[in-house]
């Protein structure tokens, strides 16, 4: 759970109870268990996303067979990137999640599906799912795939998507992994046409002593982006200017300045990000430079308890546009988990 204060340049300050999450589980037996996560965003739901969202982010049953092979079915998190499967506020630095994990990888990304997971030894583990695909009708220039998530709501599954991840966790403090997602996303158009979408990412995080580092790189390829833009314009009257290629990366370093059992821990961090949702355009389209963004985030986190994080940061965003100003913001957040 987290709420935060945000003060963007030239805009009024805002106080938002961003996320209230209920996580619950049940163990039917040693081999069958259920995990569920229900999230209320922005404290209030009225029926439109701007007012808030009530999301069933996870609700799956695991059938634990062997260490190397287990089955999962239900509402699952896409195994993409550092944040999507580890999104509790005390776990990441900064009041808001990284931009790359927002506009390139649409965190929190969850869909209904089924798949397998396990650890094959020597610290190598995997997961692979078949899930409902994204809806290309909702793709946008600025937020990429984000609004295309079907999120388990009467999803179209005529052509299922596949996703997977391999991860190396043998060295203490190091987790390195790579994930992919592939699916056909044109089901909302009449007549239907295929919009092949491929998403890939690679990431690593490392912690040793007081030092912590993270890095992630991600990309999206939309093969029929030109045809998609024309089709969306026919349906909605607006051309979304969706790119053929989206790309982003970030690197983050943090250092624990203070660590005490009685008082808690304090860490300072710095993160650099680049996220370009207009990286390569289809023929005849011009990129909107306001969506080629990079940012520096500086800040600190104080954990009075390992599950409670008080965060403060300053985010300086820039873009390549000569016209659209990039926001800068000062943010304070309180997140907790139990």
């Amino acid at each position, binding site marked *: 759970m987290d709420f935060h204060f945000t003060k963007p340049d030239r805009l009024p300050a805002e106080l938002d109870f961003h996320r209230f999450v209920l*996580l*619950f*589980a049940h163990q039917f037996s*040693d081999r069958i*268990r259920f*995990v569920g*996560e229900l999230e209320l965003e922005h404290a209030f739901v009225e029926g439109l996303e701007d007012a808030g969202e009530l999301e069933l*982010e*996870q609700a799956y049953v*695991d059938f*634990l067979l062997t*260490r190397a092979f*287990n089955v*999962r079915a239900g509402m699952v*998190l896409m195994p993409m990137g550092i944040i999507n*499967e*580890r*999104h*509790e506020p*005390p*776990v990441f630095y900064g009041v808001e999640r990284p931009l790359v994990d927002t506009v390139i990888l649409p965190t929190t990304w969850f869909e209904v599906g089924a798949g397998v*997971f396990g*650890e094959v*030894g020597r*610290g190598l*583990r995997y997961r692979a799912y078949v899930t409902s695909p994204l809806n290309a009708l909702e793709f946008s220039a600025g937020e990429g795939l984000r609004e295309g998530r079907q999120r388990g709501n009467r999803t179209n599954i005529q052509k299922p998507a596949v996703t997977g991840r391999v991860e190396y*966790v*043998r*060295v*203490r*403090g190091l*987790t390195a992994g790579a994930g992919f997602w592939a699916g056909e996303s044109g089901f909302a158009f009449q007549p239907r046409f295929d919009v092949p979408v491929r998403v890939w990412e690679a990431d690593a995080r490392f*912690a040793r002593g007081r030092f912590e580092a993270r890095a992630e790189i991600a990309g999206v390829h939309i093969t029929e982006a030109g045809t998609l833009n024309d089709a969306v314009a026919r349906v909605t009257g607006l051309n979304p200017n969706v790119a053929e290629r989206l790309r982003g990366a970030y690197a983050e370093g943090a250092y624990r300045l203070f*660590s*005490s*059992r009685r008082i808690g*821990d304090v860490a300072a961090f710095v993160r650099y990000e680049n996220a370009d949702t207009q990286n390569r355009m289809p023929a005849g389209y011009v990129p909107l430079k306001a969506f080629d963004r990079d940012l520096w985030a500086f800040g600190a986190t104080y954990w009075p*308890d*390992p*599950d409670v994080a008080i965060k403060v940061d300053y985010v300086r965003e820039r873009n390549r546009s000569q016209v659209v100003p990039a926001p800068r913001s000062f943010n304070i957040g309180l997140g907790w*988990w139990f």
Partner: protein
Amino acid sequence: MRAFKLVALAIAALLVSVVLRAAAQTTVPEQVIDIAAERFSFNPSEVRATMGTTLRIRLTSDDTMHGFRIVGANVNVAIPKRNRGTAVVTFRPEKPGRYTFECSRLCGAGHSFMRGTLVVTEPEPGQ
């Protein structure tokens, strides 16, 4: 003479206790294993031991409170949060095989990934 007998008896008792203690130490070897837990993995996630060895498993967390349960054995403890100490488990596997250990406290979205294996083998001949 009586005093001599008493001293001899005490020395004999001391020798017997020393011999018995040494014998106990040689017949029940101990293996210390350190395991670190964090969302959502144990490190190491595979541990090897020999049957008959008493395992002393020291468990720490790098973040929140986790649990440590050996499936099918009477072992289930809480691992304290980061900087809050170490949980110690003593376990003596009675038969060879693969024992699964897992987090027994719901610790977040990837809780089910927190599993590991304890591989127990029979002692080599002559051991």
